[in-house]
């Protein structure tokens, strides 16, 4: 029999083995820290392709033979729409090679390339692994898209691309001042989503006031249906209907103050009123049981199965929940209900804004090509292709004529029409990702809607987070212009 310890020359004893396994474990632990540390310091070559000749059909002076590289986020919208647009580019510039790739891991794939100074020419910076735009802008990693916006549009040479876009798109691509860094390609309508059919079964229409909302929830509760559900593990879905609700009660300035991280912005009475209204849904038992423990897919499924009437969400939900949605569901979206007669904005005030942020890296080799690809995507043909295949609107204003729209998409278009100028666009989720998702969403709203914080406590906590973010020198700060 052996010994528990190693004698001289007797080879590996158990004690040595322990030491070695400990050492082995030690090196595997901080993997993360050296994963991130591997590619820095490489200043990269700033080789750009030469500009081509500027013509009427090539207003951005794309080098016709330069290769183009596009990386697309492979998420709820898939990537086919972008592949189709790449095919058009290839047709327009037959001598160019287009390298097209898709990924769900935007950050881990592209972060080293930004560090190395050889990023691709066009990126759809979207999804859970989105790269922080504020940091990219702050570190001068993005190209200014103004030339694209000032170029003539593909469908009408007398119109600039800028003038064909939906309201708010250009502004959303800006961070403090002039240059436009990001082009949001999709156009999302946020709000309270519901099934027309389910409401009809209850003999109801969408409640336009909060009293009606409570009454309808009570009625549903008696039939064993919950009023609301939401993505409990991602409570930052709640703001999709809560923020426009706040704006409706207290006016746009309340949301602007919140975005600007002004002191006591969250202590505005409108915020308190909105929080208390939502908290009442919890108090009266109108939230689907178990909601705090489920994620976005599970909550959407519960909703399409008819277990709950309302869900705060964005217009991607129609595509995302398509598999579980019954044929007679008649998906619809509406603006938040009115709280009372003293609301500052009319019923219909809704949150709509750009989605799928496309960026052209400043260090890309073929910056013009990246922009040209975007210009192609913003043509009516490409836009219709997108809307038709993924049931979502694009940044291009209009462009839905002649398409048969699905129920949800049509409801989104109608909601936009009803809102008119009363479209709000809170920026927390693209300016301060951590604050919005983790601190306000999970630690604040999530806790309140699970009944573990009162509205007053939630507001105090959130104000604390916002104050900390305002003071944090590691975060770049922005203001509404």
């Amino acid at each position, binding site marked *: *029999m*052996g*010994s*528990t*310890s190693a004698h001289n020359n007797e080879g590996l004893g*158990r004690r040595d*083995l*322990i030491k070695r*396994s*400990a050492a082995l*474990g*030690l*090196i*595997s*632990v*901080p*993997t*993360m*820290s*050296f994963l*991130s*540390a*591997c590619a*820095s*310091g490489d*200043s990269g070559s700033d080789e750009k392709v030469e500009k081509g000749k500027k013509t009427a059909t090539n207003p951005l002076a794309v080098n016709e033979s330069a290769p183009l590289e596009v990386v697309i986020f492979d998420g709820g919208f898939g990537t086919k729409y972008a592949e189709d647009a790449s095919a058009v580019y290839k047709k327009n510039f037959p001598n160019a090679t287009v390298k097209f790739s898709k990924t769900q891991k935007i*950050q*881990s794939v592209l*972060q080293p390339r*930004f*560090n190395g100074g050889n990023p691709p020419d066009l990126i759809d910076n979207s999804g859970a692994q989105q*790269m*922080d735009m504020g*940091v990219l802008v702050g*570190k*001068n990693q993005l190209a200014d898209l103004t030339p694209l916006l000032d170029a003539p549009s593909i469908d009408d040479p007398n119109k600039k691309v800028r003038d064909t876009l939906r309201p708010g798109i250009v502004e959303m691509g800006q961070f403090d001042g002039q240059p436009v860094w990001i082009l949001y390609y999709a156009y999302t309508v946020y709000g309270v989503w519901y099934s027309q059919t389910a409401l009809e079964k209850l003999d109801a229409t969408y409640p336009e006031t909060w009293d009606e909302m409570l009454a309808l929830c009570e009625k549903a509760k008696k039939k064993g249906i919950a009023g609301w559900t939401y993505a*409990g*593990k*991602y409570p930052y879905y709640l703001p999709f209907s809560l923020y426009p609700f706040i704006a409706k009660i207290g006016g746009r300035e309340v949301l602007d103050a919140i975005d600007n991280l002004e002191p006591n912005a969250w202590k505005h009475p409108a915020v308190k009123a909105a929080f208390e209204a939502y908290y009442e849904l919890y108090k009266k038992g109108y939230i*689907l*049981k*178990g909601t*705090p*423990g*489920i*994620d976005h897919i*599970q909550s959407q499924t*519960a909703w399409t199965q008819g*277990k709950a009437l309302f869900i705060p969400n964005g217009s991607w939900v129609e595509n995302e929940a398509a598999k579980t949605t019954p044929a007679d569901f008649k998906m619809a979206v509406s603006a938040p209900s009115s709280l009372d007669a003293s609301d500052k904005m009319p019923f219909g005030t809704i949150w709509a804004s750009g989605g799928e942020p496309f960026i052209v890296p400043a260090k890309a080799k073929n910056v013009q090509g990246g922009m040209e690809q975007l210009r192609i995507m913003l043509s009516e043909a490409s836009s219709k292709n997108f809307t038709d295949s993924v049931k979502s609107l694009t940044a291009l204003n209009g462009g839905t004529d002649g398409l048969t729209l699905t129920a949800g998409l049509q409801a989104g278009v109608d909601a936009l029409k009803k809102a008119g100028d009363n479209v709000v666009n809170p920026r927390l989720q693209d300016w301060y*990702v*951590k604050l919005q*998702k*983790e601190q306000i*969403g*999970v*630690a604040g709203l999530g*806790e309140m809607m*699970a009944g*573990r914080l009162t509205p007053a406590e939630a507001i105090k906590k959130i104000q604390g987070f916002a104050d900390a973010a305002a003071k944090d020198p*590691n975060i770049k700060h922005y203001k509404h212009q």
Partner: protein
Amino acid sequence: MQHGKYRFIVGFLAAPLALYALFVIWPFIQSIYYSFTDWTGLSPDFRMTGFDNYARMLDDDVFWKSLQHSLLFALLLPLVTLGLALFFAFMLNVGGRRRRGAAIAGVRGSSFYKIAYFFPQVLSIAIVALLFQFAYNPNDGAINGALKAVGLDGVQPEWLGDPGLALWCVMAVLVWSTVGFFVVLFSAGMASIPKDFYEAALLDGAGRFTTFFRITLPLLWDTVQSGWVYMGILALGAESFAVVQIMTVGPGGPDYSTTVLPLYVYQAAFRDGQAGYATTIGVALLVVTLAFAAVVMRVGRRERLEF
């Protein structure tokens, strides 16, 4: 024949040592260097900021919460996992009723149990975490379903959605998925303990309890200790990251109730674009891990038993 011995050894050691230095030591040094910078991870330019990151870390509530959870993982998980594994291994190898004259035997069906225990080890931790994420679903998950089935309709916790429970839920999954490995490890250790010891104990009239604490455990001590270190490192590092990241999604559970150090490193580096700060937390994690291993080595030191 000592001639050229050292040249020979150096010749063989040079390549692995160089590789070790390049892929292990160098990244460590790099990380420590980056922890003194404001590197974003998204651009190659950064500047030195001295101890700013460290000062910030000491002032960061989420860091302290993560540290607390990580330490809890490192202390509690090995205790529970190894305790269970020792119990199972003992029952499988020694604890059975004596049959056909054998001095020691496992419980009936022990070879089957061994496979059953080891089975989770075959699954990737990502799959395990996903499976349990479904099981913990408060509405149609298996656990609440089982509770309902036995008439406990009133007890329907939100599991991962409840800050008081989420951390325990995550730990339970780690115990479930790792205990089998240690059962097999301890079984192997027990197999090498001479049978005469047990026979002697039997003749002296020792029961299972005494046999375990007087014979099995002391002779197995080194294996237990290495298991402890291994499990602790697992709990501090990769595994805890995987289960927390997958199961509790978002920022580490409701109200930061499950956030752990490696997850915080990941978030700072890959979400917030603050790779410099992330490496600072990584350095803290390194220190914690080293301290943990040192403590276990010291506390666990015992007289060496020869047999």
